[in-house]
């Protein structure tokens, strides 16, 4: 059982940066798209990029925080 737990901890540490950072990066790309092509040029065609950017960042953070907490708790237990 302990072996499984160590294994999963290792797996999570491998995946965690990917799971946490990629949505944030994608969200920033959407935001930049909206800002450079939509906001600066005064075009409303890119408003949806802003919406998706906010949705990505908020939606991910809501679940990322308890996920990071759970990893930290498990690490302490180890």
């Amino acid at each position, binding site marked *: *059982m*302990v072996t*499984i*737990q160590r*294994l*999963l901890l290792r*797996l*999570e540490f491998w*995946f965690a940066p*990917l*799971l*946490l950072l*990629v*949505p944030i*990066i*994608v969200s920033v*790309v*959407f935001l930049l*798209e909206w800002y450079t*092509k939509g906001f600066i040029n005064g075009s409303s*065609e*890119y408003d*949806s*990029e802003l*919406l*998706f950017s906010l*949705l*990505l960042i908020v*939606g*991910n953070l*809501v*679940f*990322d925080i*308890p*996920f990071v907490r*759970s*990893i930290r*708790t*498990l690490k302490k*237990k180890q």
Partner: protein
Amino acid sequence: MLFSEMNAKDTLKTTKQKMAKYQAEFLEQINAIEVDAHWFRRVFHTFAASFLFYYLLPDEEWINVIKIIVPIIIVFCMVVIEYRRLRGSLDHQRFFGLRSYEKKQPASYLYFGIAVLLLFLLFPQQIAIPCILCASFTDPIIGETRYHLGKKKAYAIGFIMSLLFFLITWYRADWWILILVSLVGAAGALIGETKKLRFVDDDFMIQMLPALLLLLLWQGFMAFGVNILPPTIILPI
């Protein structure tokens, strides 16, 4: 005689205590794994919303070819991994976050991947985007609120969330199309999530059912010469 009887009792008592201690530790470890796997699965879902980046990729000939080939290769790799896991060549314990019923059937991430692949290749982005968002956010939100608020409230929240995703994606359409599409799409997503099928995972159904319903709706209106599809919502870089 009396001495040996006492000794046996002591041994039995010590063994019982050791077993109780072991059981407590064992349960603690199981709980730790369950809690962890639970959040891991949730974050995997929300991470999938990043796939929307696909629609930001430039609209050039060679990139369009990559847009087709790369998702197919990724899903093919997932199929190979799952095949090997089910055959026993890959240890099940190496796959963190799998549910117990997934030991003898393809794991949900494969269904998720196949559904996203089909949406990317066969559906217009106006239909694909809200379906991916439903799988990314509605599914974990329903799963999370179900524990705290009960099934009915969780499904109501899930329906409203899905409705919101369709409203966001179709906001450029006429008001009656917006309402119709949002209701049909959200209902499809909710049915796809709640109706548990034996051989098809809900991660597949939550995406494909609303997508198919909207495809039928779109093509149905097209037959009468009405195109209900709004302009593309994510423009390539």
